[in-house]
């Protein structure tokens, strides 16, 4: 079957069986390796992408259900690492192994797009679906706050900044 969707701002057509998870479409057909496989059951969050702006698990979303939608992967936040979440993650040197961090950053960026000034409780609640097996949670909390600061600064500078759509709209 052939499916049309928009990935990181680019209209894309994909040929795949309808039950193929979006994760494997993104990784192996579109060759965007940032999105990771961890559990295949929406339990760990490694595969998190934005579907029409919502943080979703791509391992349990079929290509059939993703058709016609706007998908943003880590590569779509910015190619050069300038999205506030990417900047904050690098500044605080959050990762240990780094494998879960794409999913962490996608959940964090979706949170900040809706709630630019999250409280500690907001951050924990939003990030709870993303496992970090290395245990970088204390740095993740700090990085989300730092990204919020960076985002606020940019918003002050450019009135039309939009976190989700800096994904290459």
């Amino acid at each position, binding site marked *: 079957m052939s499916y049309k969707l928009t990935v990181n701002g680019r209209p894309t057509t994909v040929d*795949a*069986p309808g*039950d*193929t*998870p979006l994760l*494997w479409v993104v990784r*192996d*057909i579109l*060759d*965007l*390796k*940032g*999105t*990771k*496989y*961890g*559990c*295949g*059951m929406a*339990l*760990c969050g*490694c595969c998190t992408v934005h579907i029409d702006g919502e943080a979703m698990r791509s391992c349990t979303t079929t290509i059939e259900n993703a058709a016609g939608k706007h998908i943003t*992967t*880590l*590569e779509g936040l*910015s*190619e*050069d*690492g300038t999205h506030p979440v*990417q900047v904050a*993650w*690098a500044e605080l*040197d959050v*990762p*240990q*192994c*780094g*494998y*879960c*961090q*794409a999913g962490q*950053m996608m959940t964090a960026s979706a949170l900040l797009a809706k709630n630019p000034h999250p409280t500690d409780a907001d*951050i*924990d*609640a939003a*990030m*709870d*679906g*993303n*496992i*970090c*097996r*290395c*245990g*970088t*949670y*204390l*740095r*993740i*909390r700090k990085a989300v706050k730092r990204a919020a600061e960076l985002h606020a600064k940019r918003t002050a500078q450019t009135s039309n900044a939009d976190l989700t759509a800096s994904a290459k709209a």
Partner: protein
Amino acid sequence: MATTQPKLDPQESPKSNRSAGMNRRAFLRATALVGGGMMLAYYAEPLGKKVLAQFGPPVTLLPTSFITITPDGIVTIIAKNPEIGQGVKAMLPMMIAEELDVDWKDVRVEQGDLNAKYGLQIAGGSTSTPMNWDPLRQVGAGGRAMLIAAAAQTWGVSPSECSTTASRVHHDPSGRSLTYGELASKAATMPPPDPKSLKMKDPKDYRIIGKTTPNPDIHKIVTGKPLYGIDFTMPGMLYANYEKCPVFGGKVKSANLDEIKALPGIRHVFVVPPGPDPATLAGGVAIVADSWYQARAARDKTLKVEWDEGPTAAQSSQLYAATSVELAKKEPGQVLRKDGDTDAAFGSAAHVVEAAYSYPFLSHVPLEPQNCSAYYKDGKLEVWAPSQTPATGLSQTARALGIDQKDITVHLTRIGGGFGRRLTDDYMVEAAVIAKQVGVPVKLLWTREQDMAHDYYRPAGFHFLKGGVDKNGKIVAWRNHFVTFGENGRFAQSAGLGGEEFPARFIPNFSQLSSMMPSGVPMGAMRAPGSNAIAFVMQSFIDELSHAAGRDPVQFRLDLLAAAPLPMAAPPPGTPVAFAPVAFDGPRMRAVLTSVAERSGWGKRKLPPGTAMGVAFHFSHRGYFAEVAEVQVSSSKAVKVHKVWVVGDIGSQVINPGAAQNISQGAVIEGMSHAMGYEITIDAGRAVQSNFHQYPPLRITQAPADIDVFFLKTDNPPTGLGEPALPPMIPAITNAIFAATGHRVRALPLQQHGYSWA
């Protein structure tokens, strides 16, 4: 180091230098040592020259193998060891860069592939720091000496008149200077200096070591560039899944191969018989398809295999627990250590406590499931492997394929978590066998369920303890009958206990005993092997004795550590010197314990009802750690860990402080996962738990608000940090639960007693 002199010029790509630098004898030695390495980790032996001496002279590490300087001044440094998140990709190059005296902003770090010229390449046993601290600083100092020699020759002055700062050689008497980039070509013609002639920097002059240095891969990680084993692709690649018998050691009797082959996208499906070493190649069914999802879907939806399950199908966790109780009633199989007269001492003790402790099998669950890419063509194999022990994988793969080791190239990828799982290279052997069969590049990827079902699990264990305290509140007798897995007097992998394990030597009447039962469950090292479970048992039982004597748990421990220790036992005849245990140093542990008590305000802060502190310490992998957890327990057994304090002594230098804080906090988080939710249950010879809903790593809402990490710098050689911060965390929590509730947790995990995270 330069572009014009091939002899000293490592311009050859590290990806293509296999033949030139290969020292086959050294390679075999390396393989042998890696095999020993897992055992080394357990016994916490001294590492370095003594260890290498067991396997012949060490490989001479030449500056030119590790350092490339181009005329533009860019310094490329090879990171030789596998990066599993422990931070070696920054740390090892930092050692070289410091003594090379280069400006870190000029440094580019490149992952080295498996090559004997880099010496041992292993991520295990917290060995990267102790094994590389001297040789890699020598590599840097050697490079610096060659640059100075080049400058001195250029200027016609004595090298002794020259100095260096940040990528530049100076001649102070004349005020001249040249950059490393300008000197690189000439430096390459200078003879490498004798390592013994090199003078290392005074640590007070360090500009890189001891300063927080970011992860060299950080930009690639935050922008999602291909980096990990699972990300590797090449043109014409097919994707494989490999299904093994859920019962350990089982074999394929028959499978519906024709039905699988007829599915869309399936290119190959075949039965793989068990390899020459079934521990690294179990029999199974390989499904190779145009996409991994097609292979996986075929496995999930259509594959039907009739298995010969074999004898392990009769085994279970329940059977092991029942057997342990029976064995504990009998005379122990082994006496690991015996001091004084425990029976007499129990008879005269003021307080005697008896308790049985146990802990389950654990799965490592790195978030990147096992995978490996392989390409076999014309009798040669190339693999891209997320392996902690690439040399071991290479030798096992050569054996399984029946080809020579020199016909295999192993590329190292970044690794999405190790924790000891990737010390065993079964996935590499499987990928190689499949690649040989299909003749095109193949990426093998396991499902999460296969990863949890086919681990080399942290062994379960059962301890039957008796302790006696005299009227002065001092431990006078201790008996531990440890029932574990093994056969014919040999412990299963990572299922052993050293006779010298603390509190051995600090109690006058002491018996460390063991008995073994056979098991078909594959076992292996997991982060802080042995220690991650033993610390829970020892530090919990010490806590029990402290409370029985009515004494403060910190002061009770300080007094225990103040005893003049009994001598170490002579190792069994024939034990290599390097495998002999390291003496536990009481004063070093007293210092970290005193510090953590001060930092946490132990005994000085008034805590709300239901909230209490627990303390524990443990020595492993040459590191001394004491930890305090402040824990709140509700009436419904909901547990909140508010704050944790960690104090460690890993010697005179913490090489990369930011990374050290990160990994120590991670060790605390992992300890919480062990304590609450991790448990692999064996039933009918297979693992019951299959994914994270049944085997839950800690989540962010459960993480403490703060984890305070502090290092005491002591006059000891720097040692590793991947492991030793983990073990004390588990008993720190359970001891806090006792202090808060009066419930002594003697079996892990907590969830089996009705606890949950708040």
